[in-house]
Each structure stands twice: as structure tokens, then as C-alpha cells.
């Protein structure tokens, strides 16, 4: 979305330090790690979220605390890889590219995810739309805003 060349870890770090000054951000041993508190609304929980990126790879996002809870009927949490990392954007490169600052893309999406997660806990519905990988690509766009279907 930003439209420049690939950002190195140092540039990602610089963006994070300017745009998210309250985050703890560092690059060590070829890996970027940034941890910050996100609270999507004033009545939402404040969550400690970790953003990491190893050189050249897609950023990974985890909620450190509080621990995420499964659904009321023990359902999997929607839009997570292995119930560990948040699935925030299409992996095809349409929405996040290596030239995009994490601070301006992945961080806002993580906050949005946290909001829909709390609402999902409350109502059982994932209102944030999205795509389940088992749905063929041809109809993904049409279903962009459909409700998440619990398994």
C-alpha cells in the first residue's frame, strides 16, 4: 500500500519507534521484535501484543497477555494460525507487502482483530468478515464480509 521498495528491519524499527513510541522495539540477531499495548475501544481489554519479523519474511503477530480464550463451547478462535498467531491479511501479497511499514498496517489490523475477537467471545459471531482457506479463491472476494462459520 505504501508503494516503495522492500523495507529492511532497521527501517521497520524506525517506523515503529516513530509511529508507536510506547512500544518496546528492537532488532537483535537479525530479528525485529516489537511489543505494545493495544486497546481497540475504551471498554476493551488492553492486550500486550508481540510483532516479530525475521529478515525477508512476513511479520508474525501473537497476543502475549491476557491469554486468549476459546469460545464458550470450546470452539477454536477464528482467524488464527495454529491457535497461536493472528491471521490478519491475505497471504497473496495484495494487502501486505514487504514495502509496507508494520506500524501502519499490521499493528492497526491487530487492534481490529482484538476488537472482533472480544465481540466473538460475547456473541459467538465473527463480525470482521474474512476468508476461510477452505473456500475456493474464486468466491473469496464475494464472501469478504460474510460471517465466520464456526466449526
Amino acid at each position, binding site marked *: *500500500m505504501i508503494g516503495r521498495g522492500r523495507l529492511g528491519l532497521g527501517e521497520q524499527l524506525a517506523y515503529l519507534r516513530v*509511529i*508507536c*513510541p*510506547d*512500544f518496546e522495539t528492537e532488532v537483535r540477531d537479525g530479528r525485529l521484535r516489537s511489543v*505494545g*499495548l*493495544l*486497546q*481497540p*475501544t*475504551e*471498554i*476493551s*481489554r*488492553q492486550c500486550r501484543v508481540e510483532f516479530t519479523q525475521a529478515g525477508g519474511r512476513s511479520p508474525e503477530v501473537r497476543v502475549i497477555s491476557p491469554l486468549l480464550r476459546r469460545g464458550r463451547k470450546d470452539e*477454536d*478462535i*477464528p*482467524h*488464527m*494460525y495454529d491457535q497461536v498467531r493472528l*491471521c*490478519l*491479511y*491475505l*497471504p497473496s501479497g495484495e*494487502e*501486505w507487502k514487504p514495502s509496507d511499514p508494520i*506500524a*501502519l*498496517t499490521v*499493528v*492497526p*489490523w*491487530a*487492534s*481490529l*482483530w*482484538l*476488537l*472482533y475477537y*472480544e*465481540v466473538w*467471545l*460475547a*456473541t459467538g*459471531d*465473527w*463480525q*470482521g*468478515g*474474512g*476468508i*476461510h*482457506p477452505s473456500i475456493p479463491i474464486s468466491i*473469496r472476494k464475494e464472501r*469478504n*464480509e460474510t460471517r465466520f462459520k464456526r466449526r
Partner: protein
Amino acid sequence: MAFVVTALGSHTLDSLLELVCVDLQLTQTQDNLARCHYGAVADWLSRKGNPLRELSPHIFPQGSQRIGTTTKPVGRREFDLDAVCKLDVSGCHPGELYKLIWDRLAQHETYRPMMKRMPRCIRLEYSGDFHLDIAPAIPDVECGGNCILVPDLNANLALMHPQNNVWKSTNPIDQAEWFEDRCVPVMILNERYAKAQVDSVPDAEAVHAKPALKRSVQLFKRWRDVEYAKRNNLATPSIILTTLSGHFYDQQQLCTDALASILDSTVREIESCERLTITNPAHPSENICEKWDNTPACYRDFCNAVTAFRDRWIRLNRLRGIDEIEEELADLFGESTVQSVVRAMIDNRVSMPRRNGSLRVRPNSGLLLPATASSASISMPTNTFHGG
């Protein structure tokens, strides 16, 4: 125990409560139905050529419909509309007045089978879920002004029984006026009630235009309905909740703060006296705590329940996590109401702006904001949640 009750609330929680109140309003269909029935009965009682016409009948709504604090019934309970039919007579027996209006209604083929005798009113039970209570009344010459006398009859005795020669003095018009005055500064109040023979039911206010006091009363009443669903005989009447709210409201703008103040002041008042005595603010000699007088268990139950409600309200305002707040609100005001309200709020405040590209966010805190937000925020970039 003292609590800090000011500025507890957040605008987001207040928006959620506003939507709860929207859901508590009578539906448009119910509201229209109530107005239609009221209009038809008022017309029948005041129509030219009927015996009551000579007695200058004045028909007007009273209670929650008049002041805009109606709440949808919980479960299967009926909703109602309270009205007064005042006749310009004096010196009659209460039973005589009651019979005059009863007989006029009974002349109507439709109303005749719907009529039910109640101690202070004639109830018209409509098929479905609605009833209209019509209180016969005459002017209270002694108290003057808008004071009226209504029959206070023992329904087990004959209407004209000597023991039924009992009037109750009341003043619903000025009581409603007092409540409206408590809602807004006096300077912007208009002359509300024309001197028409038949007063229409005031238009339903949009909830966002409803003062925090009215929304607080709706929530207070709804809490009562949910709390007492299984021991309804001990439920404190709406008039008491409304009057307490009017007394203790302190011009807060947010409903969260208004109700916190009302509940805390009520509890403090309870703790500071042997028993609360509440009179009609517009008619100080009218005791509105008769149910507490007649059923002391009702008062004791109210004291315990309202104290617990006050404590929960304080905790609610400090709770974080939409799921936890939803759970607490559902427990207080009913699950079906609150779940749909959470969905609606998220759709209006987040999903719709996100779809049309106007949602903003502060990356440093993650706070999601509307399009009008300050420059410290950025536009939410487009994304599609994936996987899982």
C-alpha cells in the same frame, strides 16, 4: 461505604446503553397500537351526545407514556397505557363516578367484554398483549391546581358500599411536569400541555434525543423487571423508581454517570434512615410508597437488591472486555436485548466505517476512531482476515 460516582462512565459504554434503551422502547407497532386504542377510547368518552359530555370530560395520559420512560415487558407480560378521565363534578360518591364512566364504556359493544374492575381504574383488556387503564377522576378542589381525586375502591365490595367512600388525591400532570423539569434546565422548557379536552400521547422521543435521566429510568425499570421476574409480587412500582431517579439525578450527561449517581444516592438514603418515605413531588401529601407500607418484605427486598445493583453498576463501569461487559449487561437487562445491541454497535461504529473506508486508528494505542478523529490517527488500511 462511600463510592466515587462521578465521571465513571465512558462514551462507548454509554453508546451501548443507548442501544439497550432503543431496544427497550415499545416497537413502532406497539406504540401506534397504544395511541390508536387511547384515541378511540378518548373519543368515545368525550363524544358529543353522550351523558359524560355534560361533565366536561378531560382525558389525558399519565405515567411512563407521558414522560417517555416506557420499557418493553420482559417475557410475556403485557404492556399498558395509563390514562385519566376527569369529570367536572363534585360531591359525588367515588363509586358513583366510577359507575358513570363504567356505564359509558359498557355502552360500546367492543369495550363491554374487555372491561375489568380494578381498585382505582377501569381496565380495558385488548386481545394480544395490551391493556389500557382508565382512572376516573374529579378535581380536588381542596388542593386546587391540577390535583385530582380518584376512587380508591375495594374491588371485593359493591361500588356504592359505604366502605368504598374513599378518594385518593393525586396529581399526575404536575408530577410529569416535575420530572420533565428535572431532565433539562428550566430555561428551555416550553409550555407542554395545551388545555385541550383530549390530550394526545406525547410523541415517542428518539433515544439519542432522550435526556440521560429518562434513559436511566428506563434502565432502572428494566433492571427491576429482570431482577424480579421470578418474584414479581415483591417488585417496587415504577412510580417509586421514577421519583427516586428524578430526585437524585444531578444533570450528568452520560447515562452511566446519571444512573451511578441515582443508585448511590438511593442506597445512601436507605442507609441513613429507618425507612424511605417518598411522596409525589408535585403533591407532597400523596404517599407513593403504599406498596412498601402494605408489604414490608417488598421494601426490604428493594433495599438489598438496589444495593447490589449499585455495586454491580460501579463494577460494570470499571470492567474491560466487550465480552465481560456483554455478560454483565445481559445479566442485568436480559440476554436477547444485549447480544443484538453489541452486534449493532460494532456494526455501526466499526464495520460500516471500515467498509466505506472512513475508519481510523491510533497505531500507538490501537484505539479505533470515527472519520472525524484528529490527526494523531491514520486511516485503517484494507485487510481481509484469513486462515484459521
